[in-house]
Each structure stands twice: as structure tokens, then as C-alpha cells.
């Protein structure tokens, strides 16, 4: 399970990201109205939010995120927004295997599809081992965690550290930021990235909250672009490194969140593509 603070997006906030191409079909919206509360009740989550949609060749996966009261999160996927299945817990071995897959490989849409990788060279005394396989389920879990780790954004002030164990959670006294602040990247922090501390800085700050990396430090510079959508009144922060990731804030209200609607392909050409 992953310990992250701020859950991504309420289902009802999809309208705030629609102008970036992130929409749900009518049947999905209707089905989510009932299947999400059921999921919440079944697993006794404190809240269940929508992470987004990962598109495959023949069908798309809707991803939901359930957060327990202790702050641990679990991810679920669904093909039809009605039945949800939990994504597997990730081990280091799974992540290493997924790293060996060719970049840009699309998801097929069939959750049981398995890709066979080349078997590693066996040592002298050992027999050749079976070539490892990576199932689409594992790939999906790795993709969701990678995107969540690299892209999750929240406005500064929206998170506080829990007094008990220091994990970050939503700040109940957060009132929102104004429009000018919302349009500037300095008002956002990466929820899961710490500012790299230099060796000269001495002891690392005990407070995880203050060491969250600011959105201005995104590499490469210019990979996040803000856009004020006058029609809905929301400010969207689009990621160019993971095209399809949108963080949004409604200035003057505590509404904020992020979601991902895309192929789960990292844009490695970004250095050449930035204007």
C-alpha cells in the first residue's frame, strides 16, 4: 500500500478538467454514482476518488483510489465503471521488470495479457530459468504509481502533517487561493516529491510538509503549464511530461485535485518539444 496524502479527484469534479479532453461517457458517469459508494462501503474507506483513465488499444481502464483513515491508499481498476478489482501490491522486482519493457508500448485493454521478457543470462552452474513475464495488471499498477509519484500536485496550504505520525493529509482549514496565486506555479507543491536537500544543509527537516518540492522546480522547466479556464472558473495545470495529467484548482474555494486521462506513456521527447 502506498502512503500518500491528498487523494486525487472527486468524481463530480470531472467537469473542471473537461476542456483538457478529460471526459467520462454518460454510462460511466452514471455507473460511478453507484459503484463508488459501494466500493467505499465494501473496503471501509474514508474516501474513494477517481484517479483517471488509462487508455488501451481495445478498451480503457478507469482507475480509482481509496484512502483509509490511516492514510494508506489502495488502487482499483475497472473496465466498465461497475465492477472494480484491486491492483496488485508492487514489489521492487515487479518494478524492475516493468522498467525493462520497451518505452511507448501501449496497453492492450486485456487485463490478463502477458508480455514475455528475455530471460536473464543464467550463471554457470544454474540451469536457464524461465523467461519472466509481466502481466498487464502489474504494468497498470506500476504505471499508476509512477504517475502518482511524479505528477501529483496540490496547492500550498492544502495539506498539513498529521500530529500522530507525520503523514500528510488534507487541511480542513484550507480556504482556497486567489486567482493570481493559482495561475503561478509557485503556489503548487508536488505531493510526493521532496526537495533534494544538499549535503551542506545539515540535518534534514523533520517536517515532511515543508520539504515538499515546489512545482517551480519541475524538471525540465516549462513542463507544467497553467491555464485559466474562464468558462468553469478553474485553473488547470497541465503536465507536458505526462500528457494527459491535469491538476486543477478552483480559486477562492477549497476545491482542488488532479487526474490522469491518457496512455500512460511518458513524453521522453519533451526536451525537444518545448517551444
Amino acid at each position: 500500500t502506498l502512503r500518500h496524502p491528498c487523494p486525487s479527484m472527486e468524481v463530480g469534479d470531472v467537469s473542471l478538467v473537461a476542456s483538457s479532453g478529460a471526459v467520462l461517457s454518460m454510462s460511466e458517469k452514471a455507473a460511478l454514482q453507484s459503484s463508488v459508494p459501494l466500493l467505499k462501503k465494501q473496503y471501509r474507506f474514508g474516501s474513494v476518488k477517481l484517479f483517471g483513465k488509462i487508455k488501451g488499444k481495445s478498451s480503457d481502464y478507469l482507475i480509482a483510489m481509496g484512502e483509509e483513515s490511516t492514510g494508506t491508499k489502495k488502487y482499483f481498476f475497472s473496465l466498465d465503471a461497475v465492477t472494480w478489482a484491486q491492483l496488485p501490491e508492487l514489489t521492487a522486482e515487479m518494478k524492475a521488470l516493468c522498467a525493462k519493457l520497451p518505452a511507448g508500448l501501449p496497453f492492450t485493454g486485456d487485463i490478463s495479457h502477458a508480455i514475455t521478457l528475455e530471460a536473464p543470462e543464467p550463471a554457470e552452474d544454474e540451469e536457464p530459468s524461465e523467461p519472466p513475464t509481466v502481466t498487464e495488471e502489474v504494468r497498470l499498477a506500476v504505471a499508476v504509481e509512477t504517475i502518482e509519484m511524479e505528477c501529483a500536485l496540490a496547492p500550498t496550504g492544502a495539506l498539513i502533517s498529521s500530529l500522530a505520525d507525520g503523514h500528510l493529509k488534507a487541511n480542513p482549514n484550507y480556504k482556497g487561493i486567489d486567482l493570481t496565486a493559482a495561475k503561478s506555479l509557485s503556489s503548487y507543491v508536488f505531493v510526493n516529491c521532496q526537495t533534494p536537500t544538499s549535503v551542506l544543509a545539515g540535518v534534514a527537516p523533520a517536517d515532511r510538509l515543508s520539504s515538499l518540492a515546489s512545482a517551480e522546480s519541475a524538471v525540465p522547466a516549462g513542463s507544467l503549464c497553467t491555464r485559466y479556464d474562464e468558462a468553469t472558473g478553474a485553473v488547470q495545470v497541465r503536465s507536458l511530461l505526462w500528457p494527459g495529467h491535469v491538476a486543477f484548482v478552483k480559486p477562492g474555494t477549497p476545491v482542488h485535485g488532479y487526474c490522469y486521462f491518457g496512455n500512460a506513456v511518458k513524453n521522453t521527447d519533451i526536451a525537444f518539444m518545448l517551444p
Partner: protein
Amino acid sequence: PFCGAVCAGGLRLLLVAMAETASHADGLAFLKKTDENGLSLYSQLTDVLATILVSKPADALEAFETISQQVKASQFSAAATMVPPMPTEASAEESAWAAQDVALFKPSSEEEDGDGLAPPALLDEMALFEWAGVGLSREESFRVHTSLCKLQLSKKLATVRFFGKILGTGKDYYLAEAKYVDPPEQPEPDPDAPAPTVPAEEYGTGCNSCSYFVTNDPAAPWVELPNVTPGAIVAASLVRKFFTGDLSAEIRCYPPFPGVEKDYLRAQIARLVHGTTLCPSGKYRVSEEGDVEEVVKDDEGHVPLRNGAMGEPASWCHFYKGILAIGRTTNLPVVEEDDEDGEEPKPKGPEPEPEKPALLPIAGTAWSVLGPRHIGGGAAVSVSRCLMWPGAYAAAEMKEDKFANLYIGWGHPATDGINMQPAPPPIMADGDELTEMDDVPLEHENQAFQAAAEKALADGADE
């Protein structure tokens, strides 16, 4: 001994007292630190406790935070007595957009002649795409629809279609594809400019068969894009840059793109249109003149496809001709050399690529066709999405004989993750034949100038 004991005990007490006062004083000083309004935590706490003790509420513990907030709000703050600062520019921008948008929805004052113009079918098309989870929100679709109607009336466009939306880093582009009732005069090509190696197709044919309009916001005026040239199409296939939303922005890339963002956008639109516009098979056919025309329902042998068949790739075909490697849909007319020696005339240049005719069936690998989703009453919407150009969709509902195409994306084809950035050319070396020459001596150099000056003087003296 008595004095000694007193002194020892007193010293210890004194030390303890000093230690206590130090921490006590520090703590107190921390609490009494004032902010810009002269309020401190100490004053806040005393005020809250005083309020509670005076009012003695029944649920003091529950209401503690609320009372604290109320006390904070009731404090005097200097800012409240002063005139608030002028509204910032951001609010002026917001109201400008709101005013522009409201003007979009007002009906036009004059009676404009809408005869002969087919209205845009955007709202129907969006209804089709809503089944697939593609498209824009309903409000945005309506806004675009209203804007297209106004564009159509103002420019007298016979047909206008919402092509899609290309996302940009600064602003987005909304794109419309249209055909004029009376096509306007095309500007004459600049006689001084060198003739391009591959001339552009004439307006009304090939890649330039339709006009394209673009805007950053449906409420803003539409700008017509220029015709596309084969050079731009070929260059655009080598370049991969994000759009900024500003039509006159430069494209900084290698190999250099001949033009600004306007030309790059037009070239990508041409590639998208010719690569991703689909129609159901059998609905159109190529006439003898080579035009694509609709097959009339009563024709013999015409069996319209049923909804169930739309889940197969064979039921979809490309509407337009494909673009060749030279950047046009048609090959240039072959210029044959004169056969002076009576030999076989040889065509100049490389073998031309065979043209890709219109209405070719789609490749199953490049498109993913989702079978029909039943929406009741025997009607079903099937959607096929392009894997080569992520964001391009085609939807069809055969019972009502409707189909539509839409693109919402960043404007680039999919890559296989391998960066195809070409390397710059090698640094120029010296030429092969290098002959050494002596430098021209100064007197010889000056001789030429002197002769020219004397000649000028002589000419001047003659006049």
C-alpha cells in the same frame, strides 16, 4: 556552618529560579510576539478565555475553535479602515472574456441570409461521441456550435464542420473545416520568390480542398489558415513541437521548419485530415471524374452497413486520399526528356510513389475499432480510435445513417519511444582541390581602386 548551609541552599534556589525565569521569559516572549496588526498569540488567548468566561457557553470545549475564529474576526485591523487596493489586472481580463462570451450568445441583429448553407452538425456529433467518453463538455460544445454558426453566416460557408481541438502550452486551438459557397480569389504567388521544387496543390483539390479556420476561444474571431505547401508537410513530419497557442510564434527546431506556428498547424491539420478522417464503407464511392460522392440509397447493389458490422475494421474506410512522401496527394505530372537520339524517353527524377486513392479500407493495426454500444431502440454507436494519431476518433450510428470524426489532442502522432531527432550535418571541411596563391600585394590592390577613381574623375570632368 549555618551561613554555609543557607548560602548553599539559596544558591541552588537562585540557580533554579534563574533557569525557570529564563525559560519562562522565553516562552512568554514567544507568546507575546505581535504581528503587523499588533495582535499576538498571548492577546488572542486572553481574549478567547475572557469571552468564554463571560458568556459561559454550555459546550465550551466543542465550540472552542469557533469562538477563537470569531474573536480573530472581530479584532481591529488597520487594513479594514483603508480603501481597498485597485482591482488587479486579472479581474479585468476575466470580465473582458465574460463580455465577449455573452456577445456570442446574443442573436445577430440583422437578418442574415442563411439559404443554401448547411448548418454545422456539431451538437449531433457530440451526442455520438458522448457515448464513447470522447469530446468536450456540453457547455463547451454548445459554445463552439454557436460560434461556428456565426462564422458560417459571416463568411458564407456552404458547409462547416468542427474538426477538433489541439491543446497548446499557452492557449488551445479550436479548428473548423469549411467550404465556401463562392471560393474567394487565391492570392497570386510572389513572382520574386523562387519556385518551390514541389508546387502546392491548387485550392479546391488535394490537401487544399477545404479551408481551415482556427481560434483560441469560441467567443473570439476565427482566423483563416493559409493553404498548405508540400514543403511544410514534409518538414512537419520531421518536427515534433508543442503548440503554444500563438499563430505567429516561431518554431525553434531542427531541421528548421519553413514558417511559423500558423504553417506548422496547417501542415499537421493536413496530415491529420488525410490520415484520420473515416467514413463507413459503402456510403461513398469514387465517381468517373475522380470525386468522392455519396452513394444514393436507391442505387442497385447498395446495401447500407448494419450497426453490428461496424465493429470490424473492414467497415471503415479513409475518406480522403493519402498524402505521399512528396507532401501532396497527387504526383507531379511526369516530364519526359526529349528523345533526341530516338531512344526510350526516360522520366526525370525518381520513380513516383503510387497514389493512395480515397476510400481505402483502414488498416486494422493503425485503428482500434470498438464494437457497437447499444443505446436502446436498436440504435448503437460504434467508435474507432486511431493508434497512430492518439486523439483522433470516428463514430458511426448506422441506423440513423450518421457518422462523425473528431480530434482532441496535442497534434502529434504516436512515437515508439525512440527519439528520431536527426543529427546536424557534418562540419564543412576544406574543399578537395586547394591551390595555394600568394596574397595580392598592396600596390596591386590599390591599383584597382586608383584606376576606378581616376575613371570616375575623368567621367566627371567630361560632364
